[in-house]
């Protein structure tokens, strides 16, 4: 008994001593801060921070490689605790939340086969991408639900995941485990940057909307009576719901699937209804603004495009200032539309909304007269967005024969030729690049060569064989010393202060890997009718060309916002392809404005400024339906119009009125809540 006690006890003593020695000899120092931080972290090891588990994150935080608020799951209490431990301040970050991207469960979607196998999405997807006909349909097997470390996901009655907004921390685990990438993280900024792609579910109306409004969702909210939520959803991509609700050309309604059976849903009158309720209540639906970033952006042009861009830049946390040449904001909305279609007080309400959100307005500030791109960059703006609009708006604001030069070194070919023919203008520069313009371009090129320009380049997007001139004319031009560039696009400008110094040319036949040619140039003449939408940003040192810097000057380069969904390909003066821009209807200008703000946001956060991969454009083939199974007919609610006597009495009375609440609810119920190929198959009366 005693022996055994001694033997075991002795063994224990020896082992204990051994351990004690080992702990001394093989001691590894662990920063107590790391331990403390790890204890403060939630310990879910979700990986949302991008580090391998919480201990990895703790180490990174203490090393300084990660911010104290890197933990997406923890929330602000965890962040403050960590910041307290480290004695640093934390920057606020924008909250994110998981959003399932499929709305029709297995019971209501078209299926290819009955799946009765391994109960996990990872296995089911191996069988021809899952049972649903829709390539982006939720498989409904709950892999995301099981993976959620916070119990925020559950399976709804229709086999679709449901997010508990209270519990979801935005860690992104579900996004990573979903084999179809259907459930994704969402935030105000992400939604403002969103484009519809072929990899996600979208309804025909959404895809048709140049502003990209989530149409079925806001109509659903109206149907449920939540009008303020409907306005909030519209404002995620369009800050002018009251204006759009009146004058939008509603391409969405033409694409509405109800057109196949009776008549499209009154999408635009419903938008007007929701926004008018907000306007008449006088209480604006608050818009989320991401934490202050400390960046400042100047937007030039107070029309629909400029105002939209400034609104979204502001919501993304930047400080944005709009410069407008005339005395009032609104551009064509104010000067191009009859008041019985768009009353001034409605326009003012929406513009005031942009100002109330935090955008600063500077009216009576004309580009080229009161400030220039160079002077704004010098003032310390991180980017200058130029949203000047089309040729016709320029024409209306000046005397004919005047040559405008709002942008450094950029001129409209038309302006120059008209003024030159009248003898009001001499040649413009020594190194001249002319883009597009047909025989007018050749005329301008010859004028410059004749008048001793050092270099004249003509840039054509088409190959030599398809140039708008005969071979003799081309040879003749070359003999005169004009340099011709075929199948080439002008893709970038570079300069210093208010001088253009270089242009970047890119060969179109090998767009992605061709070496980009940089030309020295001081004058750029464009044959397009639109002053290009451009972003000027200060050029960081070590660019493609070293622009000789002088004291007190800023060198800059341009970024080009990516093309919107209306473009048949990537179009624009500085984009490859044709020079058409989507700016004719106000909703298109708003879409361009939002895309310009997205471009700046991507640039500021160091990402590529291209549009997202697989973005849906006019020529993109999207899975859709050509006919519907019988759905019950329901007449469209007629838009109320004021009595004829009143219309006659007041020429400025609005020609259409707003739905009343009952009408709006009835009309909203007509919506089929379409997905890519799913829709609400109603039988019996709709209402």
């Amino acid at each position, binding site marked *: 008994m005693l022996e055994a006690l001694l033997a075991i006890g002795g063994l224990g003593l020896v082992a204990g001593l051994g351990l004690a020695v080992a702990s001394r000899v093989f001691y590894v120092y662990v920063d107590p801060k790391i331990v403390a931080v790890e204890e403060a972290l939630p310990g879910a090891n979700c990986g949302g921070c991008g580090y391998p588990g919480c201990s990895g994150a703790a180490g990174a935080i203490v090393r300084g490689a990660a911010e104290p608020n890197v933990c997406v799951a923890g929330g602000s209490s965890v962040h403050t605790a960590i910041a307290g431990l480290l004695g640093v301040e934390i920057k606020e970050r924008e909250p994110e939340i998981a959003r399932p991207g499929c709305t029709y469960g297995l019971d209501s979607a078209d299926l290819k086969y009955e799946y009765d196998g391994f109960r996990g999405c990872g296995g089911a997807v191996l069988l021809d991408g899952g049972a649903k006909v829709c390539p982006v349909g939720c498989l409904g097997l709950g892999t995301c639900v099981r993976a959620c470390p916070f119990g925020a996901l559950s399976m709804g009655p229709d086999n679709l995941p449901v997010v508990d907004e209270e519990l979801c921390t935005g860690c992104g685990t579900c996004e990573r485990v979903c084999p179809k990438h259907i459930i994704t993280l969402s935030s105000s900024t992400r939604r403002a940057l969103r484009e519809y792609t072929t990899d996600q579910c979208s309804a025909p109306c959404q895809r048709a909307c140049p502003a990209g409004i989530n149409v079925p969702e806001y109509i659903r909210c109206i149907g449920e009576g939540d009008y303020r939520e409907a306005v909030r959803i519209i404002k995620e991509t369009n800050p002018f719901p009251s204006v759009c609700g009146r004058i939008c*050309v509603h*391409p969405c*309604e*033409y694409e509405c699937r109800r*057109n*196949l*059976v*009776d*008549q*499209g849903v009154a999408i635009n009158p419903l938008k007007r209804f929701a926004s008018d309720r907000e306007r008449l209540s006088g209480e604006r639906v608050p818009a989320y603004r991401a934490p202050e970033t400390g960046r400042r952006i100047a937007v030039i042009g107070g029309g629909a495009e400029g105002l939209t861009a400034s609104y979204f830049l502001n919501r993304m946390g930047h400080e944005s200032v709009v410069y407008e040449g005339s005395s009032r904001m609104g551009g*064509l909305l*104010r*000067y*191009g*539309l*009859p*008041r019985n279609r768009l009353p001034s007080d409605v326009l003012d309400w929406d513009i005031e909304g942009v100002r109330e959100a935090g955008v600063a307005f500077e009216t009576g500030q004309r580009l080229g007269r009161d400030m220039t791109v160079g002077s704004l960059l010098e003032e310390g703006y991180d980017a200058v967005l130029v949203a000047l609009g*089309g*040729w*016709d*708006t320029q*024409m*209306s*604001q000046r005397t*004919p024969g005047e040559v405008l030069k709002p942008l450094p070194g950029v001129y409209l*070919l*038309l302006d120059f*030729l*008209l003024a030159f023919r009248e003898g009001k203008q001499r040649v413009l520069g020594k190194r001249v690049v002319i*883009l*597009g*313009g*047909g*025989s*007018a*371009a050749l005329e301008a090129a010859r004028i410059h060569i004749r008048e001793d320009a050092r270099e004249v380049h003509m840039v*054509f*997007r*088409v190959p030599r064989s398809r140039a*708008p001139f005969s071979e003799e004319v081309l040879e003749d031009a070359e003999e005169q010393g004009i340099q011709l560039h075929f199948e080439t696009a002008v893709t970038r400008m570079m300069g210093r202060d208010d001088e253009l110094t270089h242009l970047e040319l890119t060969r179109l036949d090998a767009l992605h890997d061709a070496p980009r040619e940089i030309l020295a140039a001081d004058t750029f003449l464009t*044959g*397009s*009718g639109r002053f290009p939408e451009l972003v000027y940003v200060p050029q960081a040192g070590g660019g493609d060309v070293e622009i000789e810097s002088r004291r007190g000057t800023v060198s800059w380069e341009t970024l080009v916002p990516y093309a919107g969904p209306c473009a048949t390909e990537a179009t624009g*003066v500085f984009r490859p392809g*044709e*020079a*058409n821009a989507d700016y*004719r*209807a106000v909703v298109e200008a708003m879409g361009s404005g939002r895309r310009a703000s997205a471009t700046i946001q991507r640039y500021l956060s160091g990402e590529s400024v291209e549009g997202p991969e697989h973005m849906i454009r006019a020529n993109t083939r999207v899975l859709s339906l050509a006919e519907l199974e019988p759905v019950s*007919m*329901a*007449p*469209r609610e*007629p*838009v109320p119009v004021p009595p*004829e006597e009143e219309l*006659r*009495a007041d*020429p*400025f009375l609005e020609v259409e009125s707003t739905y009343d609440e009952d009408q709006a609810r009835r009309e909203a119920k007509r919506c089929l809540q379409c997905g890519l190929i799913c829709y609400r198959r109603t039988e019996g009366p709709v209402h």
Partner: protein
Amino acid sequence: METENTMTINGIEVGFTPGETILEVARRNDIHIPTLCYLKGASPTGACRVCVVEVKGARNLVASCAAPAAPGMEVLTESPKVVRGRRLNIELLLASGQHNCLVKEAGLDDWTDFQLEALESEGHKDICPAYGDCRLQDLAILYRARSDRFPTAEVRYPVENINPLIVRDFSRCILCGRCVQACNEIQVNNAISFGYRGKESKIVAKGDQPLKESDCVFCGECVQACPVGALVPLSDLEQCGLREEAEKIRTTCSYCGVGCQIFLHVRDGRVIKATGVEDVGPNYGSLCVKGRFGNDFIHDEGRLTKPLIREGDGFREAGWDEALDLVAGKLGALRQESGADALGVLSSARITNEENYLAQKFTRAVLGTNSVDHCARL
């Protein structure tokens, strides 16, 4: 009988009276079908084919302004086929002339050439004067018609700007025929009609004469009917440029006793043009040459604001009392000298009925003569 006369439009069953067109039935039931050449009150021409609708069983799209409703017809007004058809028609109309506004989207190589040609035509120094008030522009924006699909047709006829009051710009005429309808069926002046054939077609007046050589009375009915910038008041060309819409003040024309309802367009306290008020009697949008164009006298510098008394070869400004005393004295003297019938009074339609009454009372009771007349007989 009633059950037989029903049709469905966009899934709604509607009744109709035999003889009604599809467009009329739709409008009566609050279903909107866009139109361009359709002129209310005139017979439909079906020229522009913007109002086309899809009728089940019909081989082609049907112009709803001209097609009569038939029992059992099933009509869709905005089906994908209809929208495509309308877009194509609008694109063809845009390509037919120099519509150099924002909807003109010629390719990068053609745009400047197109604008140069358009701007260098006579009377085209600026963008189209109908900008913002153009039905074709509205429709092109609404249906997102692209104007670079078809090449722009060459201009066949020069701008006719030798007329007083009205400029005829054939390069922007879409040959919808609204002006012809307005002239022949509304005003019944029969001054203009279609001339030539095919692509040579043109709106002609009196064997292709300028308007001022023709039977045209310059009532401007055609100008009000023109949906584009092909017929514009001469004064509009001087008002070019985008500005906030002018104030429209509804008033009664003061030229004669008919009481036509007009809108005076007022900007910065100045009347810049007059248009007829549509749909209201007595004129239902129509005006005569004086009512429509005769308003530039309002701001004329030469208008009298004070009485003038002739002295030698010139005039001298005088006070009202002095002027009235002088007139009363002279009238009295003349009556003494040669009797009351030596006097006569001519009054004006531009003053009110009450004032005219007073004028005749004054003539008969005070002057004592029946020689009183009125300028509306001119």
